């Protein structure tokens, strides 16, 4: 009779849709996935070790390169961790500006995710639209800090400079056009039957599994777990803003998509509030010229667009950290991939990778 064989296929590290240099070894039975083994480490740069030989100020540019599509969140988390360690109080204006930046970054990051996710599923035009709008945000960042990707936008104790004149108006302008643009993406995707077919019921991650695997961010909230660091452990004055945490119900790719779409709307809400009551004053606390935190340990988490981004610093009281460790959400979320993929088709793997929104810089560090 027939002899059937399972086939191993290498997806990546050079593959159009593994978003960077992820390598997946797929064990296939026809087109059906028997097993998936993610192979990571192609982008390992040893950031944690490198940090042990750098002063605290020098580490911030390194954090830009962890999750390079959401560098502001990394900056914010890192600065927050050092500030916590030093017991620094960041001036309220700086806190609010940080929130604006972080939420703009969340929108930018989600736009990049939406574009590539849609591109993976064949809807190529959405990619260009989301990049068009992302470009507006990058322009705002460029006006604020001078860079478009690796921002190095904050400094320990606050910000380097206040926002440039007219910047807040430009942010408002962005907020005024963004909702109509988001409506266009939704017209192209949210109700499209092909999109529904490709995402609904695909890559289901149950509530229990999501918690057990330690996932966070939209991947976790898509499964209906109400956990958002911005709410549970507010940092940088997030407790003063009014926003909703979107939750999915089924935990499939489509729910994660909806959660991120709603998060973009909520981010707009937060930015609007922050702009409306932007406090006056300094943007940087009094910081000693040489930053030497007292001996001790600190763990600080922020909600990056991908999930819970943690920074663990051990200080021996010198200019450089004794040990540094990043809890990167992509790395943890990636663990859920094999579970979600089993028994599905190749085409679904692409959808699922897209839906957990990993960034390899963040996974490999």
């Amino acid at each position, binding site marked *: 009779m027939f002899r059937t064989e399972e086939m191993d296929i290498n997806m990546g590290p050079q593959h159009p849709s593994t978003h960077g240099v992820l390598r997946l070894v797929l064990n296939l039975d026809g087109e059906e996935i028997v097993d998936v083994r993610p192979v990571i480490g192609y982008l390992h740069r040893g950031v944690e070790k490198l940090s042990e030989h750098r002063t605290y100020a*020098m580490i911030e*540019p390194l954090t830009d390169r962890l999750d390079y599509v959401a560098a502001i969140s990394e900056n914010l988390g890192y600065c927050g961790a050092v500030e916590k360690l030093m017991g620094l109080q960041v001036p309220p204006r700086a806190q609010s500006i940080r929130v604006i930046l972080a939420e703009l970054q969340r929108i930018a990051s989600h736009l990049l995710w939406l574009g590539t996710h849609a591109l993976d599923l064949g809807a190529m*035009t959405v990619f260009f639209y989301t990049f068009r709008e992302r470009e507006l945000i990058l322009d705002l960042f*460029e*006006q604020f800090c001078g860079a478009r990707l690796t921002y190095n936008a904050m400094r320990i104790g606050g910000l380097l400079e206040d926002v440039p004149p007219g910047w807040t108006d430009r942010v408002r302008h962005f907020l005024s056009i963004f909702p109509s643009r988001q409506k266009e993406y939704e017209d192209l995707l949210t109700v499209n039957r092909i999109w529904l077919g490709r995402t609904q019921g695909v890559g289901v991650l149950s509530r229990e599994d999501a918690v057990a695997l330690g996932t966070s961010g939209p991947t976790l909230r898509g499964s209906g777990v109400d956990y958002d660091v911005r709410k549970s452990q507010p940092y940088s004055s997030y407790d003063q803003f009014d926003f909703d945490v*979107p939750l999915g119900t089924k935990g499939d790719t489509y729910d994660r998509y909806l*959660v991120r779409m709603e998060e973009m709307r909520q981010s707009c809400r937060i930015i609007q509030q922050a702009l409306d009551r932007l406090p006056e004053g300094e943007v940087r606390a009094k910081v000693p010229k040489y930053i030497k935190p007292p001996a001790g340990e600190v763990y600080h988490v922020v909600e990056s667009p991908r999930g819970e981004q943690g920074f663990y610093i051990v200080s021996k009281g010198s200019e450089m950290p004794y040990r540094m460790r990043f809890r990167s959400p992509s790395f943890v979320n990636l663990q859920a991939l094999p579970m979600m993929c089993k028994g599905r088709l190749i085409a679904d793997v692409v959808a699922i990778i897209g839906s957990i929104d990993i960034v390899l810089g963040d996974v490999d560090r």
Partner: protein
Amino acid sequence: MGATTRTVEAPRTTGAREILKTFLLLELWVGLWVTLKNQFRPHITVEYPKERVELSPRFRGIPRLRFHPESGEELCIACHLCETVCPDDCIHIVSEKKPDGKGKRLVSFEINLERCCFCGLCVDPCPTKPLTAIYMSHDYEMADFKRDAFVAPLKVLLNGVDPKDYKE
């Protein structure tokens, strides 16, 4: 703030109206309309070597040194602060005592652009007034065929390089 979660749900597919919509492929037509409409929006891409985007004043390009705007003297006082603070060790300064004994002056100043990550940290501590001697310029074109070209010596740092013109 109070309990603030919001459950996101898929669009309804039951009910007579929804079924009719599905039957008429309504959402597919809407999608087509969106792409058609966007055809008449202005393009946003720039034909790069011919046109260049406008950079914002804070843009961080290649770090360079500058002269005093009025007197035209070198601003740098060879304090080595930027060298110390640079995370990538890409600044290399050699200085000597000024002949009159007061202060130091530069003998050479190199930035290895292969290592530079354009973080702008070197600008923060520069002590000269009214302008920092080192600054992030608006130059960003640095492709070259030889690695030596990336080690920018003092002369280049001060004067910059002319932007390459695009010829059809």
